[in-house]
């Protein structure tokens, strides 16, 4: 019998796995860029931080990193919830609880993505 799950990120194990790996690489690159900036900038203050984020490249990289974080967190949290919040471990109440937690997680991820875009391009 085929195994299916409608709340996973890409519905396919292979695509989730690939997205998890690629998003991990993107996050690592972003972390290294920000770490290098913090290390090699003599004085980091609001003005220099704003200056850094005025460039289109870093804005795009930031959006890319936040989208990667969103996908990474979705897949990872889906994995945790389907391991521990299950009918097998908790009985029938697990299904509504897990759907509630998953929708809450998706809402939080959406807020973070929208918030990032608002910070970078808002007035």
């Amino acid at each position, binding site marked *: 019998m085929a195994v299916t799950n409608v709340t996973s990120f890409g519905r*396919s194990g*292979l695509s989730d796995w690939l997205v998890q790996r690629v998003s991990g690489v993107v996050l690592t690159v972003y972390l290294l860029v920000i770490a290098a900036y913090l290390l090699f900038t003599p004085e980091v203050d609001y003005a220099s931080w704003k200056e850094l984020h005025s460039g289109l490249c870093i804005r795009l990289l930031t959006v890319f990193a936040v989208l990667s974080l969103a996908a990474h967190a979705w897949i990872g949290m889906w994995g945790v919830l389907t391991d*521990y919040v299950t009918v097998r471990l908790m009985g029938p109440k697990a299904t509504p609880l897990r759907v509630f937690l998953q929708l809450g997680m998706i809402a939080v991820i959406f807020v973070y993505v929208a918030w990032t875009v608002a910070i970078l391009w808002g007035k």
Partner: protein
Amino acid sequence: MLKVSIYRYNPDIDSAPYMQDFQLDTQGKDIMVLDVLEQLKAEDPTLVFRRSCREGVCGSDGVNINGKNGLACVTPLSECVKNNTLILRPLPGLPVIRDLVIDMAQFYAQYEKIQPYLINDTPAPAIERLQSPEDREKLDGLYECILCACCSTSCPSFWWNPEKFIGPAGLLQAYRFLADTRDTATEERLSKLDDPFSVFRCHGIQNCVAVCPKSLNPTQAIGHIRTMLLSSGT
């Protein structure tokens, strides 16, 4: 005297499982865990465990020995005893039938799912399907599995989702038939493994590799399956 603590549970009599302590004089010999069980069973015939070949070939006597899964018949006391104490429990994660005997139906159900037999839709030759020595070598490290379940029952992903995740033993066998050049059902086999659970619940923690009594490497086989899925799915 060796202190032996054994998980006991007889559902007809006991309301809950408990640990029973035994004292055993091993006379200083480095005997196998199975020998300990046999000697204790001579004292207490109600003690129940599975065993058959007593030489690591049949895979019947997988038990949890001082916290680590292994075959009782090929695990000497010198390898497992700590503080002169031997703690024996059934393999974790599957229902206990009695004492150290577990119900392996879920384990076999996953094994059955991967169609553990050669599928070849071309006409059979007169004698046998030949394979080059190089192609035959690809099955080394795969065909030796004895299905003792030590690996799958040490895997948290299998504990939490035993009905959806195939588990290391089943996946090692899945790759054994994917890697077999005589098998013609590769695409069909791969298409059944592409969901988020069957293969991809493996997070690569390698408990399976650490406990395998035959020193096999299910994590590596799972990696090969992922690579095959990637090249057939992209």
